[in-house]
């Protein structure tokens, strides 16, 4: 192995030549399929039980093992069904009143234990997701789904409470179909503790092989059913908690994919001919959220209760430079609580212009006057606040230090209140903070904005931590979400974005792009903003580019 590494370092062309000669022998038996993809992952999944998985790293593995009824398209269009492609369901039809959809399952679909996939599995899965006892974070997103029923063994009918533009998206995107015969006796409140959570059995293109804690998850192409087999033989996740280590594995050729390349590694990536960088829009944005309400007195916050102050701080923030500093070219300035990948995005909305002078003028007018130490105060209240930030996020820690310095220049004294995720979460839930350095991962649905900014989410359990309340904003978002025509939808959301930008409950900072580096021997396809791995089953390694680890696994070495 080390000798091979040296060879690759010094003479890359030679290696291609010799692996190609290796390959001719095996290509006789198996010309098109084959190959191993090693994905270097900085995070380990919390579990592999879809309804209760919270980590995105878990979702990624589940997408390869389990299936949805239909898959969302690269357009990320969540309205209706026209941009969806068949998956576990070969076809579907709407009831005349649109309150139910019947899905015709692929008769060749098999669970990885050999049992066929049947309509009762759909019925079971929907019931499980809807059961509050399951503790699924998805349950609240499925409020429009009533139930699912079995018409015949291969036809499942999903029933809705009301006609909504995203009702197809709700059932197709949010719900994975799970094996009822293996879960029927599991206590719904202890899903994460079931054996299946550690060794899943799905119906997707790859079957689970092993999970070696904090080291490896291995999947293999499944050929149980009569459906199209994945091109690749194996998918192997190798975990390394340190992002530097995780990246180095790919740079050194030990692994093939790393999905969170940092800007300071870009030069290295472009200098290495074996690596190819893919930039995808993401569904994440980061923001500095103000707490508008004092959690102790329940009255407007002493500083951020005033919209003028919030606007001034927004103007005082040089977002272009901050984004360039943290992300280089790997992010764009965020303009509101949406991302460019979502259909509700409004490219005409301009971010608030950076102007320290205007910010100072507004603060002067609002009664915040500079003292001897050039810090501002009003009626004896110092212009001082703390920003809570989780230390686990490198990007957010950087953002806070940059913001602190920019706020200092307009006479604000921001202190940084750092803690680990547990401590940070406690602050959010108890609403006990002045400002937070937050990050939000949206799902493709434009309606997901309600989760963080609607008046309803300002309640105790919601994710509207700063308690921004605007009936006008809520109304536009509701209308936009209910609109069936895309242009009507966009019009309402555009209005909503202008309302919230004007109220400035937050400084929207950055919209990072996903920077995925992939070994150039792979022919990739079908990367989506929400999942670069969406079509991994169709990725392949051309026969002439295969290396040692792409050789077929010797029979008996894996189950």
């Amino acid at each position: 192995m080390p000798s091979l590494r040296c060879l690759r370092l010094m003479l890359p062309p030679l290696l291609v030549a010799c692996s190609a000669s290796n390959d001719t022998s095996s290509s006789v038996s198996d010309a098109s399929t084959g190959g191993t993809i090693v994905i270097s992952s900085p995070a380990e999944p919390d579990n592999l039980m879809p309804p209760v998985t919270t980590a995105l790293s878990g979702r990624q593995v589940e997408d390869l093992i389990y299936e949805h009824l239909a898959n969302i398209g690269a357009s990320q269009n969540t309205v209706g069904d026209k941009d969806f492609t068949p998956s576990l369901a070969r076809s579907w039809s709407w009831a005349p009143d649109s309150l139910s959809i019947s899905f015709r399952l692929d008769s060749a679909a098999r669970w990885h234990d050999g049992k066929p996939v049947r309509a009762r599995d759909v019925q079971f899965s929907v019931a499980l997701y809807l059961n509050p006892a399951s503790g699924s974070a998805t349950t609240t997103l499925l409020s429009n789904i009533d139930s699912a029923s079995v018409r015949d063994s291969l036809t499942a009918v999903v029933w809705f409470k009301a006609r909504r533009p995203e009702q197809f998206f709700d059932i197709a995107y949010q719900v994975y179909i799970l094996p009822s015969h293996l879960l029927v006796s599991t206590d719904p409140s202890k899903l994460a503790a079931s054996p299946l959570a550690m060794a899943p059995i799905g119906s997707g293109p790859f079957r689970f092989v092993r999970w070696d804690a904090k080291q490896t998850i291995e999947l293999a192409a499944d050929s149980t059913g009569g459906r199209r087999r994945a091109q690749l033989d194996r998918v192997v996740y190798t975990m390394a908690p340190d992002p530097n280590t995780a990246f180095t594995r790919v740079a050194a050729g030990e692994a093939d994919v790393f999905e969170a390349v940092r800007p300071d590694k870009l030069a290295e990536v472009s200098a290495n001919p074996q690596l190819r960088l893919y930039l995808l829009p993401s569904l994440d944005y980061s923001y500095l959220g103000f707490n508008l309400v004092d959690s102790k007195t329940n009255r407007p916050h002493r500083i951020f209760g005033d919209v003028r102050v919030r606007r001034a701080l927004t103007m005082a923030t040089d977002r272009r430079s901050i984004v360039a500093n943290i992300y280089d070219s790997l992010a764009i300035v965020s303009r509101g609580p949406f991302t460019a990948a979502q259909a509700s995005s409004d490219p005409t909305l301009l971010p608030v212009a950076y102007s320290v002078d205007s910010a100072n003028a507004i603060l002067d007018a609002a009664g915040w006057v500079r003292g001897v130490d050039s810090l501002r105060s009003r009626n004896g209240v110092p212009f001082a606040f703390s920003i809570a930030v989780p230390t686990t996020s490198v990007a957010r820690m950087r953002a806070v230090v940059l913001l602190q310095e920019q706020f200092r220049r307009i006479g604000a004294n921001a202190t940084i209140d750092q803690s680990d995720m547990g401590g940070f979460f406690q602050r959010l839930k108890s609403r006990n903070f002045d400002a937070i350095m937050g990050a939000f991962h949206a799902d493709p649905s434009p309606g997901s904005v309600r989760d963080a900014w609607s008046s309803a989410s300002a309640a105790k359990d919601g994710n509207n931590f700063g308690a921004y309340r605007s009936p006008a904003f809520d109304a536009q978002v509701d209308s936009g979400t209910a609109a069936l025509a895309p242009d009507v939808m966009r019009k309402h959301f555009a209005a909503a974005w202008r309302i919230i930008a004007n109220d400035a409950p937050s400084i929207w900072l950055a919209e990072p792009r996903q920077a995925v580096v992939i070994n150039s021997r792979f022919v990739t396809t079908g990367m989506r903003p929400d999942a670069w791995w969406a079509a991994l089953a169709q990725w392949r390694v051309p026969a002439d580019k295969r290396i040692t680890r792409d050789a077929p696994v010797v029979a008996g070495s894996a189950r």
Partner: protein
Amino acid sequence: MTAFLASGGDWQSVLRRLRVDQRSTFAAGALISIAALVLFGPLLTAYKPFEQLDIANLVNARPSSQHLLGTDAFSRDVLSRVLSGGRISLVVALSAVFIETAIGVTWGMIAGLAASRIDAFMMRCVDAAMSVPRVLLLLAILATAPQLPVWLLVVLLGATGWFGTARLVRSEVRALRNTDFVLAARALGAESSRLAIRHVLPHVVGPVLVASTLAVGQVIVLEAGLSWLGIGVRPPQPSWGNIIRDGTEFLATAPWVSIAPGAFLVIVVLAVSALGDGLRDALAPRHLPR
């Protein structure tokens, strides 16, 4: 042995011996220069340690005539930060190590000289304290007192770092208990406290100094680790530990950020160790076999 006892406890002669020792003089000189640098240096530097000069264009700049040690990821002058950060790092490290050594030596001496029952009790306390992860202790403290002043940080570091020293001292003292000079002193009616200070303490100085001098470096680095939990020095205030930690992220592309404070750290540890060695030799001249 008798040579030491004859001169034993004569602190003036210890100091004299220390002064003629070249190595100690050199080390003391180095420490004093660093102390002077961090004390007065920040007054002379052209930039403030938290000043972000140009976050778009002056990031991780190489060392140059403008910025002798380059700039960091926030376009701040590394030299200004290292000098300013040295104040807090040195104060925290030296005082925390002083506290942990003082507690450790006292605890270990008492346990070592006391009756075996008390000794067992004291040492099992140390066992228990050592087993509770420091992180946990600090997290719990954080829950009750989120904003920790620096002096409390020092106390905390000192109070959670003395267990090893106590064990070392205690095992040395136990070994010394029945040596003829201690027995002789005891027979002559020496009080236990006098016995401890006059006859036993000089003999445990060796291992203690070795442990303490290495602890100086460890505490400086540990402080940076604590800020992970929200304890410790908060940004933008620099400390050697957090400059090194932040610089480690850019180790491959901007090594100067972490190497500069690292070099200071290493010099301090080397100087403190050399001083410790000198002190040990000066305390016990019998160590020098001619």
